[in-house]
């Protein structure tokens, strides 16, 4: 469903990604782990069009999308829930969710009726968002904002969802809740690429995982295989 081939990208003159290659098959959850500064978030941004790759390919559902604008890639079926959540603070929770489905809703009127089934689905998944539908997103707690960011990405009915550091800055109890949610998304058959600091928790939910070091993939395999790899054990799972 999502293929990344020999991706090179960076900021200005400094190249962060030096040939990243990975594959996310339909209906699987793939984890991308690695130390700070290894290039995980940069990989995500290069896939979703936030930065333009200087070389390499990004193939979404058979179509090459590298170099396209982020808004175009999103409308082709990629939903990226970014690092730091990035909810639209001044807008209401419901408006945030509606905007998640922006590319397939009418622009002026009737959008609410059309988005109703998806809204209900997200509210069933996160009942607390239903209670706070009219509240502005900026007033939510960190955990609720993360739920909103995931819900917003779900609204797009994406072919692939990128989840960047969903546990960042959250209390341990909430982190557990986030991982329960990720497991549910997986059970619903959503194709996911997950970047996580908590490598151990990520490997528990993932079908396959890549370990990044200095801008490229150092090790890859199923969680069980990585669990037997001594280098990975020492560096990330110790």
């Amino acid at each position: 469903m999502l293929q990344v081939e020999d991706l090179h990208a960076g900021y200005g003159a400094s190249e962060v990604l030096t040939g990243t290659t990975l594959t996310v098959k339909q209906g699987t959850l793939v984890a991308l782990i690695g130390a700070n500064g290894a290039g995980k978030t940069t990989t995500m941004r290069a896939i979703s069009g936030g930065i333009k790759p200087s070389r390499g390919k990004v193939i979404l559902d058979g179509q090459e999308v590298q170099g396209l604008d982020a808004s175009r890639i999103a409308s082709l079926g990629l939903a990226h829930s970014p690092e730091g959540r990035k909810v639209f603070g001044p807008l209401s929770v419901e408006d945030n969710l509606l905007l998640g489905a922006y590319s397939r809703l009418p622009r002026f009127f009737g959008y609410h009726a059309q988005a109703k089934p998806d809204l209900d689905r997200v509210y069933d998944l996160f009942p607390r968002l239903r209670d706070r539908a009219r509240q502005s997103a900026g007033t939510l707690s960190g955990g609720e904002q993360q739920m909103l960011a995931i819900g917003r990405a779900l609204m797009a009915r994406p072919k692939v969802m990128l989840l960047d550091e969903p546990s960042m800055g959250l209390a341990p109890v909430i982190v557990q809740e986030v991982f329960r949610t990720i497991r549910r998304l997986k059970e619903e058959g959503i194709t996911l690429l997950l970047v996580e600091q908590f490598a151990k928790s990520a490997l528990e939910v993932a079908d396959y995982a890549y370990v990044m070091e200095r801008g490229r993939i150092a090790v890859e395999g199923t969680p069980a295989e990585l669990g037997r790899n001594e280098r990975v054990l020492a560096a990330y799972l110790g």
Partner: protein
Amino acid sequence: MNAQIIGQMAVSGALMGLVYALIAYGFQLTFATSKSINFGQGELVMISAFFSLTLTNLGFPYWAMVPGGLLFGALMGLVVERAGVRLALEQKSEGWILLSIIIGLFFFSAAENIWGRDDRPFPTPISADPIHILGVDVTRLELSVAVGVFAIMGLIELFKRRTLLGKAFEAVSADRDAAELMGISSTRTVMLSYGLSGSVAALAGILVSPITTVGPTMASALILKAFSVAVVAGLDSGFGVVLVGMFLGALESLASFYLGSGWREAPGLILLILALALRPNGVFGKATIRKV
């Protein structure tokens, strides 16, 4: 007697102040989406007024001339965005400041060449006879300014709150990158904001022209006041510009009556300096803290 004169002056001044508010609102629209403003907005007001005058002279009735003028304003707003602002924003530079001034100068020369340098009257079917409301005399012409300003600002605010495109507009102003991830094109949203801002400028020109006359320099004083209003009120409060605009208009009118007409420009500049010294984010503005 004295109280009545003060009331009279304050009310007609406040109504004129709504024109400053409207122009300042045009700044807010583009600032929200792109953190840029058109420094040639005054020329946009002027050239749209001239265009509307031409429509009127060609025999278009008032109700057809207004939408024509607004459409022209929107087009000119798009020209400013495409020919100037976008080039700078793509480079992440502050070049839009100079580019928008240059395009304004271009509009100014174009207007001088097409319509000449003289100030001309702007015919209108709205009567200038005073009507008596609550002890003060107001003309229908002055009231039309208030009606026009509140109508367009109300429509745009409704658009932002009720339509998905409007919510997308707000999303881009809250977080441009995150909006892109939702499939919202920030480039198109910036274009939209410049188009709306151009229409708003055109309406300001159409509303004020029958009172002041139309000429190439008609907007130079207006724009200075609009800047003051935008700075004093902050660049994110539509409610704020209306209040500050009316306050400044009333103050100016009183200053010129009691101190002499030379003092008309003083309140705007004094307010501007006070605001910059005491509340640089505007009286109604939110303090923005840049996280590093």
